[in-house]
Protein backbone atom coordinates (compact mmCIF):
# COMPACT_ATOMS: atom_id res chain seq x y z
CA UNK A 1 0.00 0.00 0.00
CA UNK A 2 1.21 3.52 -0.74
CA UNK A 3 2.59 5.50 2.19
CA UNK A 4 0.63 8.62 3.09
CA UNK A 5 0.67 10.27 -0.36
CA UNK A 6 -0.23 13.71 0.99
CA UNK A 7 3.32 14.15 2.31
CA UNK A 8 4.91 13.01 -0.95
CA UNK A 9 7.51 14.91 -2.97
CA UNK A 10 6.97 14.83 -6.73
CA UNK A 11 9.16 15.22 -9.82
CA UNK A 12 8.10 15.27 -13.46
CA UNK A 13 10.35 13.76 -16.19
CA UNK A 14 11.66 16.46 -18.56
CA UNK A 15 9.51 18.91 -16.71
CA UNK A 16 10.83 19.56 -13.21
CA UNK A 17 14.17 21.25 -12.44
CA UNK A 18 16.99 19.06 -11.06
CA UNK A 19 16.64 20.99 -7.81
CA UNK A 20 13.46 19.02 -6.95
CA UNK A 21 15.51 15.82 -6.93
CA UNK A 22 18.02 17.52 -4.64
CA UNK A 23 15.14 18.28 -2.24
CA UNK A 24 13.93 14.66 -2.45
CA UNK A 25 17.43 13.31 -1.74
CA UNK A 26 17.78 15.64 1.25
CA UNK A 27 14.37 14.54 2.58
CA UNK A 28 15.34 10.85 2.23
CA UNK A 29 18.64 11.45 4.04
CA UNK A 30 16.93 13.35 6.85
CA UNK A 31 13.92 11.02 6.90
CA UNK A 32 11.59 13.98 7.35
CA UNK A 33 10.13 16.95 5.48
Amino acid at each position, binding site marked *: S*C*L*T*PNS*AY*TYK*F*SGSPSKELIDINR*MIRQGSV
Partner: protein
Amino acid sequence: QELLEQVELLKAQISELERQERELDMQKSCLQQSLKHLKEDPSCCRYNYVTHEDICDVFSGDTLLAVMAPAGTQLEVPVPEVAQNGQKRYQVNLRSESAPIQVMLINRE
Protein backbone atom coordinates in the same frame (compact mmCIF):
# COMPACT_ATOMS: atom_id res chain seq x y z
CA GLN B 1 21.91 69.03 -6.37
CA GLU B 2 23.93 65.92 -5.43
CA LEU B 3 20.78 63.91 -4.74
CA LEU B 4 19.39 64.89 -8.15
CA GLU B 5 22.59 63.67 -9.82
CA GLN B 6 22.31 60.38 -7.89
CA VAL B 7 18.72 59.96 -9.08
CA GLU B 8 19.77 60.52 -12.70
CA LEU B 9 22.60 58.00 -12.31
CA LEU B 10 20.21 55.41 -10.86
CA LYS B 11 17.78 55.93 -13.75
CA ALA B 12 20.60 55.27 -16.24
CA GLN B 13 21.70 52.13 -14.33
CA ILE B 14 18.13 50.80 -14.22
CA SER B 15 17.66 51.23 -17.97
CA GLU B 16 20.96 49.37 -18.54
CA LEU B 17 19.74 46.55 -16.26
CA GLU B 18 16.47 46.52 -18.21
CA ARG B 19 18.48 45.98 -21.42
CA GLN B 20 20.53 43.17 -19.84
CA GLU B 21 17.39 41.44 -18.57
CA ARG B 22 15.79 41.58 -22.03
CA GLU B 23 18.92 40.06 -23.53
CA LEU B 24 18.91 37.22 -20.97
CA ASP B 25 15.24 36.51 -21.69
CA MET B 26 15.93 36.39 -25.44
CA GLN B 27 19.03 34.16 -25.05
CA LYS B 28 17.14 31.79 -22.74
CA SER B 29 14.18 31.30 -25.09
CA CYS B 30 16.54 30.76 -28.07
CA LEU B 31 18.48 28.15 -26.12
CA GLN B 32 15.32 26.36 -24.97
CA GLN B 33 14.21 26.17 -28.61
CA SER B 34 17.61 24.90 -29.66
CA LEU B 35 17.62 22.20 -26.94
CA LYS B 36 14.10 21.13 -27.91
CA HIS B 37 15.09 20.78 -31.58
CA LEU B 38 18.24 18.87 -30.61
CA LYS B 39 16.25 16.34 -28.58
CA GLU B 40 13.70 15.92 -31.37
CA ASP B 41 16.27 15.75 -34.21
CA PRO B 42 16.23 12.12 -35.49
CA SER B 43 19.97 12.20 -36.26
CA CYS B 44 20.60 13.12 -32.59
CA CYS B 45 17.98 10.86 -31.00
CA ARG B 46 19.89 7.88 -32.35
CA TYR B 47 22.90 8.86 -30.22
CA ASN B 48 21.38 10.28 -27.05
CA TYR B 49 22.10 7.37 -24.74
CA VAL B 50 24.54 6.41 -22.02
CA THR B 51 25.96 2.92 -21.51
CA HIS B 52 25.91 0.73 -18.41
CA GLU B 53 29.65 1.36 -18.02
CA ASP B 54 29.03 5.13 -18.01
CA ILE B 55 26.55 4.72 -15.15
CA CYS B 56 28.63 2.22 -13.18
CA ASP B 57 31.66 4.52 -13.47
CA VAL B 58 29.64 7.37 -11.93
CA PHE B 59 28.23 5.30 -9.06
CA SER B 60 30.91 2.80 -8.07
CA GLY B 61 29.63 -0.11 -5.99
CA ASP B 62 25.96 0.79 -5.74
CA THR B 63 22.88 -0.98 -6.95
CA LEU B 64 21.33 1.16 -9.65
CA LEU B 65 17.85 1.40 -11.12
CA ALA B 66 17.80 3.17 -14.49
CA VAL B 67 14.29 4.46 -15.16
CA MET B 68 13.52 5.42 -18.77
CA ALA B 69 10.12 7.06 -19.01
CA PRO B 70 8.28 9.42 -21.38
CA ALA B 71 8.34 13.15 -20.64
CA GLY B 72 5.61 14.01 -18.17
CA THR B 73 5.96 10.81 -16.16
CA GLN B 74 5.28 11.59 -12.51
CA LEU B 75 7.67 10.38 -9.81
CA GLU B 76 6.39 10.49 -6.23
CA VAL B 77 8.46 9.95 -3.07
CA PRO B 78 6.49 9.89 0.21
CA VAL B 79 8.19 10.90 3.43
CA PRO B 80 9.65 7.65 4.85
CA GLU B 81 7.60 6.06 7.63
CA VAL B 82 8.60 3.65 10.36
CA ALA B 83 6.94 0.23 9.84
CA GLN B 84 5.62 -1.92 12.73
CA ASN B 85 8.98 -3.71 12.98
CA GLY B 86 10.63 -0.36 13.66
CA GLN B 87 12.35 -0.37 10.29
CA LYS B 88 12.07 2.68 8.04
CA ARG B 89 10.37 2.09 4.70
CA TYR B 90 11.37 4.15 1.68
CA GLN B 91 9.09 4.25 -1.33
CA VAL B 92 9.10 5.49 -4.95
CA ASN B 93 5.98 5.60 -7.11
CA LEU B 94 6.22 6.09 -10.89
CA ARG B 95 3.18 6.87 -13.01
CA SER B 96 3.10 7.46 -16.77
CA GLU B 97 -0.01 8.63 -18.64
CA SER B 98 1.38 8.18 -22.15
CA ALA B 99 3.65 5.16 -22.58
CA PRO B 100 5.13 2.25 -20.62
CA ILE B 101 8.04 2.86 -18.28
CA GLN B 102 11.24 0.83 -18.63
CA VAL B 103 13.31 0.03 -15.56
CA MET B 104 16.75 -1.56 -15.74
CA LEU B 105 18.55 -2.99 -12.70
CA ILE B 106 22.28 -2.35 -13.03
CA ASN B 107 24.93 -3.74 -10.76
CA ARG B 108 28.59 -3.88 -11.78
CA GLU B 109 29.09 -7.28 -10.14
